[in-house]
Protein backbone atom coordinates (compact mmCIF):
# COMPACT_ATOMS: atom_id res chain seq x y z
CA UNK A 1 0.00 0.00 0.00
CA UNK A 2 2.69 2.43 1.08
CA UNK A 3 4.77 1.42 -1.94
CA UNK A 4 2.01 2.46 -4.38
CA UNK A 5 1.46 5.69 -2.50
CA UNK A 6 5.18 6.46 -2.76
CA UNK A 7 5.13 5.96 -6.52
CA UNK A 8 2.32 8.48 -6.76
CA UNK A 9 4.23 10.83 -4.55
CA UNK A 10 7.43 10.43 -6.58
CA UNK A 11 5.50 11.09 -9.74
CA UNK A 12 4.04 14.24 -8.22
CA UNK A 13 7.50 15.46 -7.26
CA UNK A 14 8.77 14.85 -10.79
CA UNK A 15 5.83 16.71 -12.35
CA UNK A 16 6.25 19.66 -9.94
CA UNK A 17 9.96 19.73 -10.74
CA UNK A 18 9.18 19.79 -14.46
CA UNK A 19 6.59 22.47 -13.88
CA UNK A 20 9.19 24.50 -11.99
CA UNK A 21 11.78 24.13 -14.76
CA UNK A 22 9.32 25.20 -17.47
CA UNK A 23 8.09 28.10 -15.32
CA UNK A 24 11.65 29.36 -14.91
CA UNK A 25 12.33 28.88 -18.62
CA UNK A 26 9.46 31.12 -19.74
CA UNK A 27 10.37 34.04 -17.47
CA UNK A 28 12.80 35.55 -19.94
CA UNK A 29 10.79 34.67 -23.04
CA UNK A 30 9.58 37.87 -24.69
CA UNK A 31 6.31 36.25 -25.82
CA UNK A 32 5.34 35.27 -22.28
CA UNK A 33 2.28 37.22 -21.14
CA UNK A 34 2.83 39.46 -18.15
CA UNK A 35 0.53 37.49 -15.87
CA UNK A 36 2.68 34.39 -16.45
CA UNK A 37 5.99 36.03 -15.60
CA UNK A 38 5.65 35.52 -11.84
CA UNK A 39 4.00 32.13 -12.04
CA UNK A 40 7.26 30.32 -11.25
CA UNK A 41 6.62 31.13 -7.57
CA UNK A 42 3.85 28.56 -7.42
CA UNK A 43 5.86 25.49 -8.50
CA UNK A 44 8.85 26.83 -6.50
CA UNK A 45 6.87 26.83 -3.27
CA UNK A 46 5.24 23.54 -4.33
CA UNK A 47 8.69 22.03 -4.73
CA UNK A 48 9.91 23.43 -1.41
CA UNK A 49 6.91 21.84 0.29
CA UNK A 50 7.24 18.59 -1.64
CA UNK A 51 10.84 17.99 -0.51
CA UNK A 52 10.10 17.67 3.25
CA UNK A 53 7.00 15.64 2.46
CA UNK A 54 9.12 13.42 0.25
CA UNK A 55 11.65 12.91 3.05
CA UNK A 56 8.82 12.21 5.44
CA UNK A 57 7.18 9.65 3.20
CA UNK A 58 10.41 7.87 2.26
CA UNK A 59 12.71 8.20 5.24
CA UNK A 60 11.74 9.70 8.59
CA UNK A 61 9.03 11.96 10.04
CA UNK A 62 9.81 15.65 10.31
CA UNK A 63 8.70 17.53 13.37
CA UNK A 64 6.12 20.29 12.89
CA UNK A 65 5.69 19.57 9.19
CA UNK A 66 2.04 20.57 9.59
CA UNK A 67 3.11 24.23 9.71
CA UNK A 68 4.59 23.84 6.27
CA UNK A 69 1.37 22.27 5.02
CA UNK A 70 -0.61 25.15 6.55
CA UNK A 71 1.63 27.69 4.94
CA UNK A 72 1.54 25.93 1.58
CA UNK A 73 -2.27 25.74 1.64
CA UNK A 74 -2.57 29.43 2.41
CA UNK A 75 -0.04 30.27 -0.28
CA UNK A 76 -1.80 27.91 -2.71
CA UNK A 77 -5.12 29.67 -2.21
CA UNK A 78 -3.71 33.21 -2.23
CA UNK A 79 -1.56 32.63 -5.29
CA UNK A 80 -4.03 30.75 -7.47
CA UNK A 81 -6.99 32.84 -6.31
CA UNK A 82 -5.09 36.00 -7.08
CA UNK A 83 -4.05 34.60 -10.46
CA UNK A 84 -7.67 33.85 -11.37
CA UNK A 85 -8.69 37.36 -10.29
CA UNK A 86 -5.90 38.77 -12.41
CA UNK A 87 -6.91 36.96 -15.61
CA UNK A 88 -10.66 37.37 -15.19
CA UNK A 89 -12.00 39.42 -18.11
CA UNK A 90 -14.35 41.27 -15.72
CA UNK A 91 -13.44 41.61 -12.08
CA UNK A 92 -16.39 42.66 -9.99
CA UNK A 93 -16.76 43.50 -6.29
CA UNK A 94 -18.67 40.31 -5.45
CA UNK A 95 -15.88 38.08 -6.71
CA UNK A 96 -13.25 40.05 -4.79
CA UNK A 97 -15.38 39.94 -1.62
CA UNK A 98 -15.86 36.19 -2.12
CA UNK A 99 -12.11 35.70 -2.46
CA UNK A 100 -11.24 37.67 0.68
CA UNK A 101 -14.03 36.07 2.69
CA UNK A 102 -12.67 32.64 1.80
CA UNK A 103 -9.19 33.81 2.70
CA UNK A 104 -10.36 34.93 6.14
CA UNK A 105 -12.21 31.65 6.73
CA UNK A 106 -9.27 29.50 5.66
CA UNK A 107 -6.74 31.56 7.64
CA UNK A 108 -8.91 31.35 10.75
CA UNK A 109 -9.23 27.59 10.34
CA UNK A 110 -5.52 27.09 9.87
CA UNK A 111 -4.50 29.39 12.67
CA UNK A 112 -6.92 27.93 15.15
CA UNK A 113 -5.58 25.71 17.92
CA UNK A 114 -7.57 22.76 16.62
CA UNK A 115 -5.94 22.90 13.21
CA UNK A 116 -5.56 19.13 12.79
CA UNK A 117 -9.28 18.77 13.04
CA UNK A 118 -9.92 21.64 10.65
CA UNK A 119 -7.14 21.07 8.09
CA UNK A 120 -9.11 18.76 5.80
CA UNK A 121 -12.08 21.07 5.94
CA UNK A 122 -9.77 23.96 5.04
CA UNK A 123 -8.43 21.97 2.10
CA UNK A 124 -11.93 21.17 0.90
CA UNK A 125 -13.12 24.79 1.22
CA UNK A 126 -9.97 26.20 -0.42
CA UNK A 127 -10.10 23.97 -3.42
CA UNK A 128 -13.83 24.21 -3.83
CA UNK A 129 -13.48 28.02 -3.84
CA UNK A 130 -10.73 27.81 -6.47
CA UNK A 131 -12.88 25.52 -8.63
CA UNK A 132 -15.75 28.01 -8.30
CA UNK A 133 -13.51 30.93 -9.28
CA UNK A 134 -12.38 28.90 -12.30
CA UNK A 135 -16.01 28.43 -13.29
CA UNK A 136 -16.50 32.20 -13.07
CA UNK A 137 -13.57 32.59 -15.46
CA UNK A 138 -15.13 30.12 -17.92
CA UNK A 139 -18.47 31.91 -17.82
CA UNK A 140 -16.81 35.25 -18.35
CA UNK A 141 -14.75 34.17 -21.34
CA UNK A 142 -17.88 32.73 -22.91
CA UNK A 143 -19.57 36.10 -22.49
CA UNK A 144 -16.76 38.40 -23.56
CA UNK A 145 -16.68 39.85 -27.05
CA UNK A 146 -12.89 40.04 -27.40
CA UNK A 147 -12.17 36.54 -28.66
CA UNK A 148 -8.91 34.75 -27.95
CA UNK A 149 -7.37 31.69 -29.48
CA UNK A 150 -8.42 29.67 -26.48
CA UNK A 151 -6.26 26.59 -27.00
CA UNK A 152 -3.17 28.76 -27.27
CA UNK A 153 -4.06 30.96 -24.31
CA UNK A 154 -1.91 30.13 -21.24
CA UNK A 155 -4.50 31.48 -18.80
CA UNK A 156 -7.08 29.04 -20.16
CA UNK A 157 -4.80 26.05 -19.52
CA UNK A 158 -3.89 27.28 -16.04
CA UNK A 159 -7.54 27.77 -15.10
CA UNK A 160 -8.50 24.43 -16.67
CA UNK A 161 -5.78 22.79 -14.57
CA UNK A 162 -7.06 24.48 -11.43
CA UNK A 163 -10.65 23.57 -12.29
CA UNK A 164 -9.91 19.91 -13.00
CA UNK A 165 -7.38 19.47 -10.19
CA UNK A 166 -9.24 21.35 -7.52
CA UNK A 167 -12.71 20.30 -8.66
CA UNK A 168 -11.50 16.71 -8.27
CA UNK A 169 -9.58 17.31 -5.06
CA UNK A 170 -12.21 19.21 -3.14
CA UNK A 171 -14.76 16.34 -2.72
CA UNK A 172 -11.87 14.01 -1.89
CA UNK A 173 -10.76 16.30 0.94
CA UNK A 174 -14.34 16.37 2.15
CA UNK A 175 -14.45 12.55 2.12
CA UNK A 176 -11.16 12.35 4.01
CA UNK A 177 -12.53 14.81 6.50
CA UNK A 178 -15.58 12.58 6.92
CA UNK A 179 -13.43 9.48 7.30
CA UNK A 180 -11.25 11.21 9.88
CA UNK A 181 -14.34 12.25 11.79
CA UNK A 182 -15.48 8.66 11.77
CA UNK A 183 -12.01 7.31 12.50
CA UNK A 184 -11.92 5.25 9.29
CA UNK A 185 -8.20 5.85 8.92
CA UNK A 186 -7.50 2.81 6.73
CA UNK A 187 -9.34 4.20 3.73
CA UNK A 188 -7.31 7.41 3.91
CA UNK A 189 -4.42 6.21 1.77
CA UNK A 190 -6.62 5.43 -1.17
CA UNK A 191 -8.07 8.94 -1.20
CA UNK A 192 -4.67 10.53 -0.62
CA UNK A 193 -3.42 8.81 -3.75
CA UNK A 194 -6.28 10.37 -5.68
CA UNK A 195 -5.46 13.76 -4.20
CA UNK A 196 -1.87 13.40 -5.35
CA UNK A 197 -3.18 12.46 -8.79
CA UNK A 198 -5.30 15.64 -8.88
CA UNK A 199 -2.19 17.76 -8.23
CA UNK A 200 -0.34 15.87 -10.96
CA UNK A 201 -3.17 16.65 -13.41
CA UNK A 202 -3.10 20.30 -12.39
CA UNK A 203 0.63 20.64 -12.91
CA UNK A 204 0.45 18.87 -16.28
CA UNK A 205 -2.02 21.53 -17.40
CA UNK A 206 0.34 24.19 -16.05
CA UNK A 207 3.13 22.73 -18.20
CA UNK A 208 0.87 23.01 -21.23
CA UNK A 209 0.27 26.67 -20.27
CA UNK A 210 4.03 27.31 -20.12
CA UNK A 211 4.42 25.79 -23.56
CA UNK A 212 1.65 28.06 -24.86
CA UNK A 213 3.35 31.05 -23.25
CA UNK A 214 6.30 30.64 -25.56
CA UNK A 215 4.09 31.48 -28.50
CA UNK A 216 0.92 33.44 -27.82
CA UNK A 217 -1.20 34.38 -30.80
CA UNK A 218 -4.13 36.71 -30.61
CA UNK A 219 -6.88 36.97 -33.18
Amino acid at each position, binding site marked *: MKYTYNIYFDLQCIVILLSFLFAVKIVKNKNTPRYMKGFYWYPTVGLLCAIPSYIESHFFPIKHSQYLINFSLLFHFCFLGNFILKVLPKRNVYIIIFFYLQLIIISTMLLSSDWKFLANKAFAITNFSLALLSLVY*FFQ*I*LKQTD*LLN*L*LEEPSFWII*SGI*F*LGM*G*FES*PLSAVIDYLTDNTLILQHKYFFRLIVASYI*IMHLFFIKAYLCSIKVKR*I
Partner: protein
Amino acid sequence: MIFLLVTIVVFIVFIYKQKQNTYLKGMKELKMIHENDMLRSQLEIQEQTFQNISREIHDNIGQKLSLAKLHLNTLHVGGQLGLDSQIKNIVNFLTETIADLSDLSRSMSSDVIKNNGFLKALEFEINQLNKPELFNIKLTVVGEPVFMHAEKELILFRIVQESLNNVIKHAHASSIHLNLHYADSHLLLSITDNGKGFSLDNFNKRNGLLNMNKRALMLNGQFDIESSIGTGTVVTIKLPIYENS
Protein backbone atom coordinates in the same frame (compact mmCIF):
# COMPACT_ATOMS: atom_id res chain seq x y z
CA MET B 1 -15.97 12.92 -11.13
CA ILE B 2 -12.92 13.65 -13.26
CA PHE B 3 -14.93 12.64 -16.34
CA LEU B 4 -17.61 15.16 -15.44
CA LEU B 5 -15.03 17.92 -14.95
CA VAL B 6 -13.31 17.11 -18.23
CA THR B 7 -16.70 17.13 -19.96
CA ILE B 8 -17.38 20.61 -18.57
CA VAL B 9 -14.05 21.93 -19.89
CA VAL B 10 -14.54 20.28 -23.30
CA PHE B 11 -18.06 21.67 -23.48
CA ILE B 12 -16.78 25.17 -22.69
CA VAL B 13 -14.10 24.87 -25.39
CA PHE B 14 -16.72 23.62 -27.86
CA ILE B 15 -19.12 26.49 -27.13
CA TYR B 16 -16.26 28.99 -27.28
CA LYS B 17 -15.05 27.64 -30.63
CA GLN B 18 -18.57 27.85 -32.03
CA LYS B 19 -18.85 31.43 -30.83
CA GLN B 20 -15.45 32.19 -32.30
CA ASN B 21 -16.44 30.72 -35.67
CA THR B 22 -19.66 32.73 -35.74
CA TYR B 23 -17.72 35.85 -34.85
CA LEU B 24 -15.08 35.25 -37.53
CA LYS B 25 -17.78 34.49 -40.10
CA GLY B 26 -19.54 37.71 -39.19
CA MET B 27 -16.29 39.64 -39.45
CA LYS B 28 -15.60 38.13 -42.86
CA GLU B 29 -19.06 39.06 -44.08
CA LEU B 30 -18.68 42.59 -42.74
CA LYS B 31 -15.32 42.91 -44.45
CA MET B 32 -16.80 41.72 -47.72
CA ILE B 33 -19.72 44.15 -47.43
CA HIS B 34 -17.29 46.95 -46.64
CA GLU B 35 -15.10 46.06 -49.63
CA ASN B 36 -18.14 45.94 -51.88
CA ASP B 37 -19.29 49.31 -50.60
CA MET B 38 -15.84 50.74 -51.21
CA LEU B 39 -15.74 49.36 -54.73
CA ARG B 40 -19.26 50.60 -55.43
CA SER B 41 -18.27 54.08 -54.25
CA GLN B 42 -15.16 53.96 -56.42
CA LEU B 43 -17.22 52.95 -59.42
CA GLU B 44 -19.75 55.69 -58.74
CA ILE B 45 -16.98 58.29 -58.54
CA GLN B 46 -15.40 56.91 -61.70
CA GLU B 47 -18.74 56.97 -63.53
CA GLN B 48 -19.37 60.51 -62.34
CA THR B 49 -15.94 61.57 -63.63
CA PHE B 50 -16.58 59.86 -66.96
CA GLN B 51 -19.95 61.57 -67.16
CA ASN B 52 -18.41 64.98 -66.48
CA ILE B 53 -15.64 64.51 -69.06
CA SER B 54 -18.14 63.20 -71.59
CA ARG B 55 -20.43 66.20 -71.06
CA GLU B 56 -17.49 68.57 -71.24
CA ILE B 57 -16.36 67.05 -74.56
CA HIS B 58 -19.85 67.14 -76.00
CA ASP B 59 -21.06 70.50 -74.71
CA ASN B 60 -17.90 72.56 -74.60
CA ILE B 61 -15.00 71.28 -76.71
CA GLY B 62 -17.28 69.84 -79.40
CA GLN B 63 -19.23 73.06 -79.63
CA LYS B 64 -16.09 75.18 -79.91
CA LEU B 65 -14.62 72.94 -82.60
CA SER B 66 -17.90 73.04 -84.53
CA LEU B 67 -17.84 76.83 -84.29
CA ALA B 68 -14.25 76.92 -85.51
CA LYS B 69 -15.23 74.67 -88.43
CA LEU B 70 -18.16 76.97 -89.25
CA HIS B 71 -15.92 80.01 -89.24
CA LEU B 72 -13.43 78.28 -91.49
CA ASN B 73 -16.18 77.27 -93.90
CA THR B 74 -17.39 80.86 -94.18
CA LEU B 75 -13.89 82.27 -94.58
CA HIS B 76 -13.25 84.17 -97.86
CA VAL B 77 -9.64 83.91 -98.88
CA GLY B 78 -9.97 86.09 -101.97
CA GLY B 79 -8.66 83.50 -104.45
CA GLN B 80 -5.23 83.14 -102.86
CA LEU B 81 -3.49 80.13 -104.31
CA GLY B 82 -3.08 77.10 -102.01
CA LEU B 83 -4.91 78.65 -99.10
CA ASP B 84 -8.24 77.29 -100.19
CA SER B 85 -7.07 73.68 -100.15
CA GLN B 86 -5.31 74.21 -96.80
CA ILE B 87 -8.52 75.45 -95.24
CA LYS B 88 -10.33 72.46 -96.70
CA ASN B 89 -7.77 70.16 -95.07
CA ILE B 90 -8.15 71.90 -91.72
CA VAL B 91 -11.93 71.59 -92.02
CA ASN B 92 -11.53 67.87 -92.74
CA PHE B 93 -9.25 67.44 -89.71
CA LEU B 94 -11.74 69.29 -87.57
CA THR B 95 -14.58 67.11 -88.85
CA GLU B 96 -12.63 63.99 -87.96
CA THR B 97 -11.69 65.35 -84.55
CA ILE B 98 -15.29 66.28 -83.81
CA ALA B 99 -16.42 62.80 -84.80
CA ASP B 100 -13.70 61.14 -82.67
CA LEU B 101 -14.55 63.30 -79.70
CA SER B 102 -18.20 62.52 -80.14
CA ASP B 103 -17.41 58.80 -80.18
CA LEU B 104 -15.19 59.17 -77.12
CA SER B 105 -17.92 61.08 -75.36
CA ARG B 106 -20.45 58.38 -76.15
CA SER B 107 -18.07 55.66 -75.07
CA MET B 108 -17.48 57.32 -71.72
CA SER B 109 -21.04 58.18 -71.05
CA SER B 110 -23.25 55.66 -69.29
CA ASP B 111 -26.29 57.04 -71.12
CA VAL B 112 -25.67 54.71 -74.07
CA ILE B 113 -26.04 51.68 -71.81
CA LYS B 114 -28.96 53.15 -69.89
CA ASN B 115 -30.84 54.04 -73.07
CA ASN B 116 -29.87 51.25 -75.45
CA GLY B 117 -28.67 48.41 -73.23
CA PHE B 118 -25.42 46.50 -72.85
CA LEU B 119 -25.49 44.77 -76.23
CA LYS B 120 -25.92 47.96 -78.28
CA ALA B 121 -23.23 49.70 -76.27
CA LEU B 122 -20.91 46.79 -76.86
CA GLU B 123 -21.61 46.81 -80.61
CA PHE B 124 -20.90 50.53 -80.68
CA GLU B 125 -17.65 50.06 -78.77
CA ILE B 126 -16.52 47.29 -81.14
CA ASN B 127 -17.35 49.43 -84.18
CA GLN B 128 -15.24 52.22 -82.75
CA LEU B 129 -12.30 49.91 -82.14
CA ASN B 130 -12.60 48.35 -85.60
CA LYS B 131 -12.46 51.75 -87.30
CA PRO B 132 -8.68 52.15 -87.44
CA GLU B 133 -8.51 48.60 -88.87
CA LEU B 134 -5.71 47.65 -86.49
CA PHE B 135 -7.69 44.78 -85.02
CA ASN B 136 -10.30 42.39 -86.16
CA ILE B 137 -12.85 42.34 -83.37
CA LYS B 138 -15.79 39.99 -83.72
CA LEU B 139 -18.88 39.67 -81.58
CA THR B 140 -20.96 36.51 -81.43
CA VAL B 141 -24.22 36.38 -79.52
CA VAL B 142 -25.76 33.05 -78.64
CA GLY B 143 -29.24 32.80 -77.10
CA GLU B 144 -31.91 35.38 -76.55
CA PRO B 145 -30.40 38.67 -75.24
CA VAL B 146 -31.86 39.79 -71.94
CA PHE B 147 -31.88 43.29 -70.45
CA MET B 148 -30.32 43.28 -67.00
CA HIS B 149 -30.35 45.96 -64.34
CA ALA B 150 -28.77 49.16 -65.75
CA GLU B 151 -26.12 49.33 -63.01
CA LYS B 152 -25.20 45.70 -63.57
CA GLU B 153 -24.93 46.22 -67.34
CA LEU B 154 -22.78 49.30 -66.78
CA ILE B 155 -20.35 47.42 -64.50
CA LEU B 156 -20.20 44.54 -66.99
CA PHE B 157 -19.57 47.01 -69.80
CA ARG B 158 -16.71 48.59 -67.86
CA ILE B 159 -15.18 45.14 -67.31
CA VAL B 160 -15.32 44.47 -71.06
CA GLN B 161 -13.87 47.92 -71.78
CA GLU B 162 -11.02 47.29 -69.36
CA SER B 163 -10.39 43.87 -70.86
CA LEU B 164 -10.36 45.21 -74.43
CA ASN B 165 -8.14 48.05 -73.32
CA ASN B 166 -5.68 45.52 -71.84
CA VAL B 167 -5.61 43.55 -75.10
CA ILE B 168 -5.02 46.69 -77.15
CA LYS B 169 -2.32 48.03 -74.85
CA HIS B 170 -0.39 44.88 -73.89
CA ALA B 171 -1.33 41.82 -75.94
CA HIS B 172 -0.23 42.90 -79.46
CA ALA B 173 -3.15 40.88 -80.79
CA SER B 174 -4.56 41.06 -84.29
CA SER B 175 -7.82 39.30 -83.60
CA ILE B 176 -10.21 39.55 -80.68
CA HIS B 177 -13.31 37.46 -80.35
CA LEU B 178 -16.14 38.33 -77.99
CA ASN B 179 -18.66 35.64 -77.30
CA LEU B 180 -21.87 36.38 -75.43
CA HIS B 181 -23.90 33.40 -74.42
CA TYR B 182 -27.28 34.06 -72.81
CA ALA B 183 -28.33 30.92 -70.95
CA ASP B 184 -31.53 30.49 -68.89
CA SER B 185 -30.20 31.86 -65.66
CA HIS B 186 -26.80 33.24 -66.46
CA LEU B 187 -24.77 35.12 -68.98
CA LEU B 188 -21.42 33.77 -70.11
CA LEU B 189 -19.10 36.28 -71.69
CA SER B 190 -15.71 35.36 -73.08
CA ILE B 191 -13.05 37.56 -74.64
CA THR B 192 -10.43 35.64 -76.61
CA ASP B 193 -7.38 37.16 -78.25
CA ASN B 194 -4.47 35.79 -80.25
CA GLY B 195 -1.90 38.03 -78.56
CA LYS B 196 1.37 37.20 -76.84
CA GLY B 197 -0.28 36.07 -73.60
CA PHE B 198 1.27 36.32 -70.15
CA SER B 199 2.13 34.28 -67.11
CA LEU B 200 -0.58 34.11 -64.47
CA ASP B 201 1.97 33.82 -61.65
CA ASN B 202 1.74 37.49 -60.81
CA PHE B 203 -2.04 37.70 -61.08
CA ASN B 204 -2.33 39.38 -57.66
CA LYS B 205 0.05 42.15 -58.71
CA ARG B 206 -2.00 43.16 -61.75
CA ASN B 207 -4.41 45.82 -60.58
CA GLY B 208 -6.45 45.82 -63.78
CA LEU B 209 -7.19 42.10 -63.49
CA LEU B 210 -7.87 42.37 -59.79
CA ASN B 211 -10.32 45.20 -60.41
CA MET B 212 -12.13 43.16 -63.06
CA ASN B 213 -12.29 40.24 -60.66
CA LYS B 214 -13.64 42.44 -57.86
CA ARG B 215 -16.25 43.94 -60.15
CA ALA B 216 -17.37 40.49 -61.30
CA LEU B 217 -17.62 39.37 -57.67
CA MET B 218 -19.68 42.44 -56.91
CA LEU B 219 -22.18 41.22 -59.50
CA ASN B 220 -22.14 37.78 -57.81
CA GLY B 221 -20.30 36.52 -60.86
CA GLN B 222 -17.17 34.52 -61.57
CA PHE B 223 -14.12 35.86 -63.28
CA ASP B 224 -11.65 33.48 -64.90
CA ILE B 225 -8.59 34.08 -66.95
CA GLU B 226 -6.56 31.59 -68.96
CA SER B 227 -3.26 32.63 -70.42
CA SER B 228 0.28 31.58 -70.94
CA ILE B 229 3.14 33.12 -72.86
CA GLY B 230 2.64 32.79 -76.63
CA THR B 231 -0.86 31.32 -76.55
CA GLY B 232 -3.10 34.36 -76.22
CA THR B 233 -5.60 35.02 -73.46
CA VAL B 234 -9.15 34.00 -72.67
CA VAL B 235 -11.13 36.04 -70.16
CA THR B 236 -14.40 34.49 -69.03
CA ILE B 237 -17.10 36.12 -66.97
CA LYS B 238 -20.12 34.23 -65.75
CA LEU B 239 -22.94 36.28 -64.27
CA PRO B 240 -26.38 35.46 -62.95
CA ILE B 241 -28.90 37.30 -65.13
CA TYR B 242 -31.50 37.70 -62.43
CA GLU B 243 -30.77 39.04 -58.95
CA ASN B 244 -31.87 35.90 -57.11
CA SER B 245 -30.28 33.35 -59.43
